[in-house]
């Protein structure tokens, strides 16, 4: 009896969502396109950064150093400068991100065994890009230094540093961001579909009718939550497939762990969506509520900027953000091959969020009458 009622409600919900062609379209197509576009766009790696050279020396040593920059895929030489003023012109107009300046004593200093300075002028308007560009510059310079000293039989420093990055040896930020997008896009679709479901009926007055049917609030809750959960699962599977086969992100861990985390996350997202939906009296309020939750949830999830950099009070806020936990799960399963023992700490908060929000949503069904 109860099963049949839930099925009936479930079928009705799916129809309400998918009978409209455009609704079907916006739920399925844009997230896929976005994963592909954003997957390529979201990266802190620098490629073909435009730079200019102001070589006042012009000697062979200077040439040798500059050739290394020309050969690097990170940089793209766009201008050769003749006058000092051109530096400001190019950087101000954002024509180049950095200017390498070698003064006239560069070759002489180098030949005499003195340290020769390489002036690096960087546009700091985007401080992260500036820092990364400086980092790449330093790496090229230290490569040059090593070869220069060993070619001349000079001894380098007696001790040295060897750096290795685990799980992502080439430090590809694409892996990090594509796995992050898997979480964001799943959240957006799930939240939007569930946030509308109760509010739409409230606005049209059909929710009151639903309440006087033999359906119990629990059954209404299940009937309303299931479509969101299924759509979310479908969407998440789709983006995971794209991440693995299109972007070639290595999936090290097991699918069972991934899907356990995914279902818990979806339940939490559905719970928040339904809660917002049952609080709202109109569709507009529900949409606003969904936005108001989603935007901070995305920005403070650790997707682009680490949570550890946030001040304490903001870090506490992120504790109620389901995306925060899910991103750790997705990234750990994909890149580190993490199993349950490591991820339990991320999974139980999701379960708690899901339980609390779903219970609240069910309670609100009855206690908040439009």
């Amino acid at each position, binding site marked *: 009896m109860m099963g049949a009622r839930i099925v009936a409600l479930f079928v009705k919900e799916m129809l309400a969502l998918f009978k409209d062609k455009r609704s079907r379209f916006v739920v399925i197509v844009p997230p896929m396109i976005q994963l592909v576009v954003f997957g390529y766009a979201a990266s802190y790696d620098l490629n073909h950064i435009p730079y200019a050279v102001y070589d006042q020396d012009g000697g062979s040593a200077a040439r040798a150093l500059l050739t290394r920059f020309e050969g690097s895929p990170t940089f793209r030489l766009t201008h050769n400068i003749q006058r000092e003023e051109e530096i400001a012109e190019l950087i101000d107009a954002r024509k180049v991100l950095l200017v390498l300046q070698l003064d006239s004593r560069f070759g002489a200093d180098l030949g005499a065994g003195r340290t020769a300075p390489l002036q690096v002028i960087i546009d700091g308007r985007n401080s992260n890009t500036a820092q990364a560009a400086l980092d790449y510059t330093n790496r090229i310079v230290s490569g040059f230094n090593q070869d220069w000293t060993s070619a001349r039989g000079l001894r380098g*420093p007696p001790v*040295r540093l060897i750096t*290795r990055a*685990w799980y992502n040896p080439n430090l590809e930020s694409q892996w990090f961001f594509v796995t992050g997008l898997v979480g964001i896009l799943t959240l957006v679709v799930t939240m939007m579909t569930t946030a509308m479901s109760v509010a739409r009926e409230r606005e049209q007055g059909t929710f009151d009718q639903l309440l006087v049917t033999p359906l119990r609030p629990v059954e209404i809750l299940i009937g309303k939550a299931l479509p969101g959960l299924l759509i979310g699962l479908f969407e998440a599977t789709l983006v995971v497939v794209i991440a693995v086969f299109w972007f070639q992100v290595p999936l090290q861990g097991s699918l069972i762990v991934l899907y356990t985390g995914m279902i818990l996350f979806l339940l939490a997202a559905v719970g928040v969506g339904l809660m917002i939906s049952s609080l709202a009296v109109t569709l507009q309020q529900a949409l606003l509520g969904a936005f108001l939750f989603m935007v*901070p949830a995305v920005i403070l999830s650790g997707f682009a900027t680490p949570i550890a950099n946030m001040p304490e009070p903001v870090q506490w806020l992120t504790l109620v953000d389901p995306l925060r936990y899910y991103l750790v799960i997705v990234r750990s399963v994909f890149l580190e091959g993490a199993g349950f023992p490591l991820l339990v700490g991320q999974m139980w908060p999701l379960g708690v969020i899901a339980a609390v929000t779903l219970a609240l949503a069910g309670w609100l069904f009855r206690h908040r009458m439009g």
Partner: protein
Amino acid sequence: MSANVRPRSGSKRVNRRLRGLLRKEWLQILRDPSSIAIAFVLPVALLLLFGYGVSLDSKHVPIGIVIEQPGAEAASLAGAFRHSDYFKPQFFDTRQEAVAALRAHRLDGIVVIPSDFAARAKGNRDAPVQVIANGVNANSARLLSGYVQGVWSTWLTRVLDARQIPMAQPVEARPRIWFNPEVRSRNYLVPGLLVVNMTLVGALLTALVFAREWERGTLEALMVTPVTLREILLGKLLPYFVLGAGGTVLSVLMAVYLFQVPLRGSLWVLAVCSTLFLLAALGMGLLISIVTRNQFVAGMVAIVATFLPAFLLSGFLFDIDSMPAPIQVITHVIAARYYVAILQTLFLAGDVWSVILPNAAALALMAAFFLGLSRRRLNKRIE
């Protein structure tokens, strides 16, 4: 209703009709305070949250220092890490313990000082110190290794100086970072966040407006009155423009006074560019709601077309020059891209016309395009 049946009217009557519409819209805004909340509360709350929350400047990064054999050399290197503001070091005796902590996400990186470090360093033989970073977040890993390198070379220079061994460094890069010498990430993130906020506000304010009237059928009721389509559009645009402008002013004030981002450009340029951007954002919202006529679809399109692109494709976080060429082409249709370029320049560099003029022109073009298209689509759908 079609254009030629529309009663010709003197400018006075147009004004009166427009005034009527504006009054109606204002009343609607005042009675359902959600619009005011979007325009004022949303930007303030988001800017506060993000301005404080979003930062790429790491501090106190948990790092493990493995000292396999205690000694003076190892202790002095460990001390260098302890005194760095960037790290919060924990000390381990064996590599295994540190690796376990790294795997459990309790550490972001490990520095291993091997047992023969002292002997090798004294003997001037090659003594490698190993650094292991968790590379899952590539950017953080790169920053971490950069900072380790920094601590390391400072320490090395000091040690070599004390032993009077000249450091063999043929070429030294001397950076000068313009506009933001202390490399404060907030200085570029806050202008960018302002753009994300205003994109959201602009689209939200208008995206749902028309869709709601379509769903309720009130737009058709409006159509049979003598008001022209242009008046309907203006009646929608003007009130929300005023709200959005208020939100922008608030956000700029917060950026300057609360977050202490320097504003080096002139205010009137900022005002003109912000007006253009707001018109483009509102125009896009209007177009979305006119085309979709459905609040669910409008909401979905608004978030897909505004928030995420403004966040990811505007150059606010991710460098546009580094994106693959086809993606760079796509960024040209994102209004936020131009506004981000303008704001970062206006705030940090000043009135650089070679940046401002082309970007402002692009914004003007987009505003004209969206508003013009809104006007056309509204017309077509009615007949």
